[in-house]
């Protein structure tokens, strides 16, 4: 017997590749350290999640909603530091093959 798939309407859920292993747990519960909203949600000033409210990766391995972090960096008190570890904030370069790495 040969099975041919003619048309498959599937349901999938997207998630940000934050480096944690997808298969461990369900990947939910990872929240932005600034607004405490899940990465897959959106920052308080946004209404649409996903590409409209992207994440930002730091060299220090911390990940935030981009809008949250930019707002933080914009304040004088931030001294351009990562809010988690107080190291100077350096945005990491993300590469396509990066996601397969860690």
């Amino acid at each position, binding site marked *: 017997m040969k099975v041919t798939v003619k048309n*498959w309407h*599937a*349901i999938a859920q*997207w998630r940000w590749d934050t480096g944690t292993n997808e298969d461990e747990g369900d990947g939910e519960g990872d929240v932005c350290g600034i607004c405490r909203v899940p990465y897959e949600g959106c920052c308080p000033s946004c209404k649409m999640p996903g590409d409209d409210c992207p994440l930002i990766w730091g060299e220090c391995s911390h990940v935030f909603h981009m809008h949250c972090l930019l707002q933080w960096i914009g304040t004088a008190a931030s001294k351009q530091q990562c809010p988690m570890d107080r190291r100077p904030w350096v945005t990491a370069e993300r590469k*396509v093959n990066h996601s397969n790495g860690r």
Partner: protein
Amino acid sequence: MATDALRAQIAGKWQSAFSRLNRGEPGISGLLSFSEAWTIAADFLQPRDLADPAPKKEHDMQEVRGAFDTLSKSKMLPMLLENFLESMRKQRYLIEREVDQFMSQYDSTEDCQYIAGLVLRLVEWYKAWAPIPELGYTILSAYTLAFHTQTFSILPPSFASGFKALVASTLTLIDSDTLPTWAHHPALAYYNPKRPDVPLWSAFDQLGLLDRYESLISSVCYEHIEAHIQETCAGKWGEPMLARLREWMAEKIVPWMIMPYARGARNTDEARSMLQGIGSRFDFHVCKTLSDLRTKEIFDIIVDYPDSLCALQDLKECLQRVDQRTELVQTLRKANKKRLLHPGADTKDILLQYVSIIRCLRIVDPPGVLLYKVADPIRKYLRERPDTIRCIVASLVGDGESGDSLVDENEPIQPLQQLQVEDYTDPNWEPEPIDAGPEFRTNKPSDVISTLVSIYDSKDLFVKELQVLLAQRLLSIKDGNFERERRNIEILKIRFGESALQVCEVMLRDMTDSKRIDQHVQSQKSLSLHPTIISGHFWPPLQSSTLTMPGQLKELQDEYSKQYTTFKPDKRLRWLPQLGSIKLELTLQDRTVSADVSLLEAAFIELFSEKDIWTIDELTTRVRSIDRISAAKALATWVDMGVLKAGGDSVYRLLEVAEEVPTSSSAAAIQHLPAVEEVPTIMTVQQQQAEQMKVYWKFIEGMLTNLGQLSLDRIQSMLKLAPGYDRTIEQLASFMEAARREGLVTVKDGVWKLNR
């Protein structure tokens, strides 16, 4: 003994009496003429027997008048009257005899023609005995009064009912052409054949029956009106009846009313003013009867809305005249309780009826006091139903399944209205209606949806339910056309506000994004997989499972994931394998089978392409932890399609070559399988809870054994210590009640103890 003074006094009296009778005539000739006049007058006035065959004695009227004149001069008329009334009393037996005769005829036949005969005969007596009019009004009225008193004392009690029947039969003249039997009475027949009752009425009047039986006559009319309304209006809601009834009153009843109520009228204006009082009483009765009738029918009228619009308008008009609002509320509440708010009624039907009630009572009573009173129990009841919200939401988004939508298409879409604080600076402010309850608010939400949503305290519940419904719909869309859903959400945004539906907005955007992404992926590499990619946090929790797709299905998924990650480098896909559907084509040795199946079914058949024989256990291990029931169900689908064949020991075999006409055993197996599966799926939520509750029974039994007797609160608080106990006290109460019915426990004054 007699003193001189006394003698003189008596002599004086005698002298004056003599001179009065003698009228100053010479000698005693005056006295003689007086005596002659008295005899003539007394004989003239003597009540005679009508039944006496002897011819009526002829009196020389000249002579009689002279005699009366003489008596009047002697001031003896009062004496004569007294004498006359006395002789009337003596002759009374003559009338009594005839009355008895008529009444016994009536009593045996119940035919009111005898009553008519009696009345007319009495008039004859009355006329025969009446003194001549020259004697003056005083004597005539004294005579009439005496005659009335006498006849009334003669008439037996059954006369009243006979009289009533007679009056009622005059009313039938209005509608029918056939004359009642009494109309052939010789005294009536010569009169206008259309209205033989006219002389009858004047006979009633002469005998004083109209005054005496006034309430009886009006009750006859009331009954006639009631019967007419019952006959013409019952169950007819499609046309305005009140106006027609009033017309009927003016055309039919008013001409009749002139007889008993406006007898003395000389012209129409006079008649009108005489009829005014009684007329408005009858009009009131018409309104009262109609509103009683409509009140009784109100539930069905509401069911029939909007076809019953006219009936509602009638009711409104009646209620303005008659104060029957309380009755209406009570009747409707009772009817609702009996016919609507019971477990047998569908929630959708209850909602539909509730909406109709809202619409109908707004017509009857625009301020909404009645509605408020009627709606309260319905709202309470709906709040307790688990699927109320779902029903409301389904109708909000225009559930295509049923034709009746709660929402009127023509109703303008407007934002939900919230309760407002009363604005006292409003120049058009009006106080609340007097019969409004303490909770009543004049400016309650007036549109249907707002009213429905206000059943619950917050609209969040609706938004949540809406989200679930929208999710179900969107995920089941295969052709990527969700314009209808988008339109619905746009409409609902107006009602619920933009921010409340933000989540739904995200869901819709996920749909468009998925489409766009899929177009891109397909342009890179054509795949037969078209996923809907959702933002998990914005969708209602979807049942998750760990189904692992086998073979080429897995490859397809992986390929798509790879393409997706190329397109969106920062994102990854997580498949929700239990959702969605797949269209497969199976190429077997002798045939191809095309099927639209669920993912689990697809996974199984994919495994069968590896080898032909599998057991359920093997299959479930391959796809990872699928419970046997759903696995068996999925396999049964293929068995039904003739692709697989079920053997013993839950072994399934692929049929590369179709089996002609399934043998009885395999047919039995097909039918057998579903039957086995059905049993556990039917188990309701309540049953499951009852099963779980049995575990806790051990705890309860233990504590009642140790502590003797306990109140429900104590049992509940102690059970809370037990692991996993999550029941409410109400659930516990119903469980204890069930245990009591089984005879395990007894309860007294709210304290439970074991039944030993």
